[in-house]
């Protein structure tokens, strides 16, 4: 690159402080964007995933007498969207972490592993509950809100320990939405989770965007 022609002397040549401030802010913002495993656009995509996926489940259980749970097509839509989210998230995380190593990276990987185990574990409780004779309304309420209440609370504590306050707040908001959804009944909990998680994801996208745009020098 030609910009290095004035650089060997070390005095910066005619490098104006304004140019330096602009370059510093621009480079910092670009680096933050490239290193962030959860960029704002991914959170916007997740908001669509939860709104459409959980919304489809709510539409399929609305008016059920008695409540029998989401229909096959609704669950297929939900699982397809969740799979798409997992695929896109994995690609984004790998892209952001490429070439990066160190303690923060290791802590992040451990956190992701713990959260995966907690998520699978909390959903795995559904099977014993079902076999223990839990009625459909009780069982139907559980997958919509129960696991995410556990995941949200564990995630909030774990991310607070890493001082990732944005994600800690997100996890706490997920737990709060799940707790509120628990009062919505088997049908209403799907709708509350769909809208609640959509709002949480959009809020996180806004916070992430604000973090990325934050200037070091120019306000």
């Amino acid at each position: 690159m030609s910009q290095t022609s004035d650089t060997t002397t070390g005095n910066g040549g005619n490098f104006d402080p304004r140019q330096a401030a602009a370059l510093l802010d621009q480079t910092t913002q670009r680096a933050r964007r490239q290193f962030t495993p959860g960029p704002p656009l991914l959170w916007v995509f997740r908001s669509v995933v939860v709104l459409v996926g959980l919304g489809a489940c709510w539409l399929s259980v609305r008016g059920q007498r008695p409540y029998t749970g989401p229909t096959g097509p609704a669950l297929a839509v939900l699982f397809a969207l969740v799979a798409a989210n997992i695929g896109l998230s994995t690609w984004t995380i790998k892209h952001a972490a490429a070439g990066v190593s160190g303690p923060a990276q290791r802590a992040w990987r451990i956190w992701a592993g713990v959260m995966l185990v907690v998520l699978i574990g909390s959903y795995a409780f559904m099977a014993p509950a079902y076999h223990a004779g839990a009625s459909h309304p009780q069982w139907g309420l559980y997958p919509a809100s129960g696991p995410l209440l556990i995941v949200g609370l564990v995630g909030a504590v774990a991310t607070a320990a890493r001082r990732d306050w944005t994600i800690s707040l997100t996890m706490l908001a997920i737990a709060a939405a799940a707790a509120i959804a628990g009062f919505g009944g088997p049908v209403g909990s799907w709708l509350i989770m769909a809208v609640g998680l959509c709002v949480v994801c959009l809020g996180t996208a806004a916070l992430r965007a604000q973090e990325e745009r934050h200037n070091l020098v120019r306000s």
Partner: protein
Amino acid sequence: MTNDELDPLIHVPARLKIVATLAALPDGDALSFTRLQDMIGLTPGNLIMHLRKLEEADYIGSKKSSNGSVSITTVALTGRGRAALAAYTQVLRDLLGGLDGDGMPNHEHQHI
């Protein structure tokens, strides 16, 4: 406040980009040479030259490791480098705070 107060080691476009990029990583994390080169857009030779200057001042640290037959070099900002960037940023803020929209020091308008 004058431009002379800006750290000459950082006040160079290529090195400012290197330091700012490494500072965006969490403290203690390192970046591979190839990813850094990809992000900064310098030739390997130029990047090595700038990294060497920063390393001599203890602003960055580098480590070589081998993964089978592949040798990987990683670079990370040191505590001293982070402090130097913070000081540089503060001087820039002070300098820009003392300039008006035309790029002239505020006090010079009083003489015109």
